């Protein structure tokens, strides 16, 4: 009985590790996902992205450091979602939110809003194209087997730790998948 109890405990620890995001998962191209959650066949992963990394990424694709600064200083993540189910799902980034330690809800900035900023700042078109397609899109459709990754930013800085709540629509209605205990990248 005692041995079985230990076996059950070990399985529970592993399961909770996966379910709460305290798990380091290996994904595409050697990416280590620091935060990971699963709800049925849907998986959702995120990594905080620092200011320096984003400045380096986008200045290599035509932005000036000054132009990308407003974006890079925001609390941002690389996120990925995958549909291993048998039904299609849809996401609307406008529905996603962070809830911080004070209970404050913070929306995500949309790629279209950023593009308006780039138009005003006269960012070159190739840089805007790279930015547009590097983001997690405002509207996504995931057929069975599909997965999509991209960058997201929060509209304002949440108080850590916070949750990322990602609603999605499936054939049963609206579902939510939640990443817990997140912080923005330290820089």
């Amino acid at each position, binding site marked *: 009985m*005692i*041995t*079985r109890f230990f*076996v059950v405990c*070990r*399985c529970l620890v*592993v*399961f909770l*590790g*996966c379910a709460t995001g305290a*798990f380091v*998962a*290996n*994904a*595409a*191209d050697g*990416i280590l*996902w620091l935060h*990971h959650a*699963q709800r049925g066949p849907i*998986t959702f992963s995120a990594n905080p992205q620092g200011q320096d990394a984003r400045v380096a*990424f986008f200045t290599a*694709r035509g932005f000036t450091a000054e132009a990308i600064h407003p974006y890079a200083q925001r609390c941002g993540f690389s996120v990925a979602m*995958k549909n*291993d189910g048998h039904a299609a799902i849809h996401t609307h980034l406008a529905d996603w939110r962070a809830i911080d330690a004070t209970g404050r809800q913070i929306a995500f900035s949309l790629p279209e809003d950023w593009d308006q900023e780039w138009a005003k700042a006269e960012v070159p*078109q*190739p840089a805007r*194209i*790279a930015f*547009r*397609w*590097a983001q997690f*899109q405002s*509207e*996504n*459709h*995931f*057929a*069975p*087997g*599909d*997965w*999509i*990754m*991209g960058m997201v930013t929060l509209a304002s800085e949440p108080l850590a730790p916070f949750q990322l709540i990602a609603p999605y629509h499936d054939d049963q209605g609206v579902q939510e998948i939640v990443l817990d205990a997140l912080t923005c990248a330290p820089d």
Partner: protein
Amino acid sequence: MTKEYRKLSSMPSLAPRIDRRRFLALLGLFWVAPLVWAQGTGMTPIPSRPPAPVLQLKDSDDQLIDLAQYRGRVVLVNFWATWCPPCRQEFPSLGRVRERFPPGTFEVIAVNVGEEVETAFPFTGSTPFPVVFDNEAKTLAAWSVRGLPTTFLVDRQGHLAFQATGGREFDAADIVVIIEQLLNH
């Protein structure tokens, strides 16, 4: 504690009850699943198979590649960029799947989105299929691409037959079977 542990582990009646295979299977189920979700699976049929949009773009040698010139072949059209991790990961499988089928039956066209030849070529090197460049990302709207990578299978009659969003291994059995089915129709 140590004493108690020794006592337990030396109890012969308990040893057979530790079903290690079951434990490892359960452990693997929870532990491995997040590790192997790197690439997606399969491709999704496109209802009513509309005609493929026009695709006329130049390759790195400034040669115009026109999808229409491949009518009669099954064509895999892949939209990608070098900065896109799943694009980079799946790219070698485009060459592998291209070489699984006899010349003249199946072709791959990789459409680089928004980059210059000088940026993409160090990554691609020479490929057994055309890599074309859509510097202004103008084809994406016509092809209803919502994210990178996105891949289409165009049937021998020039219709959009299957689609996949997100990375794949295109020489995986489930996708090779789809291509074979399209080749037989």
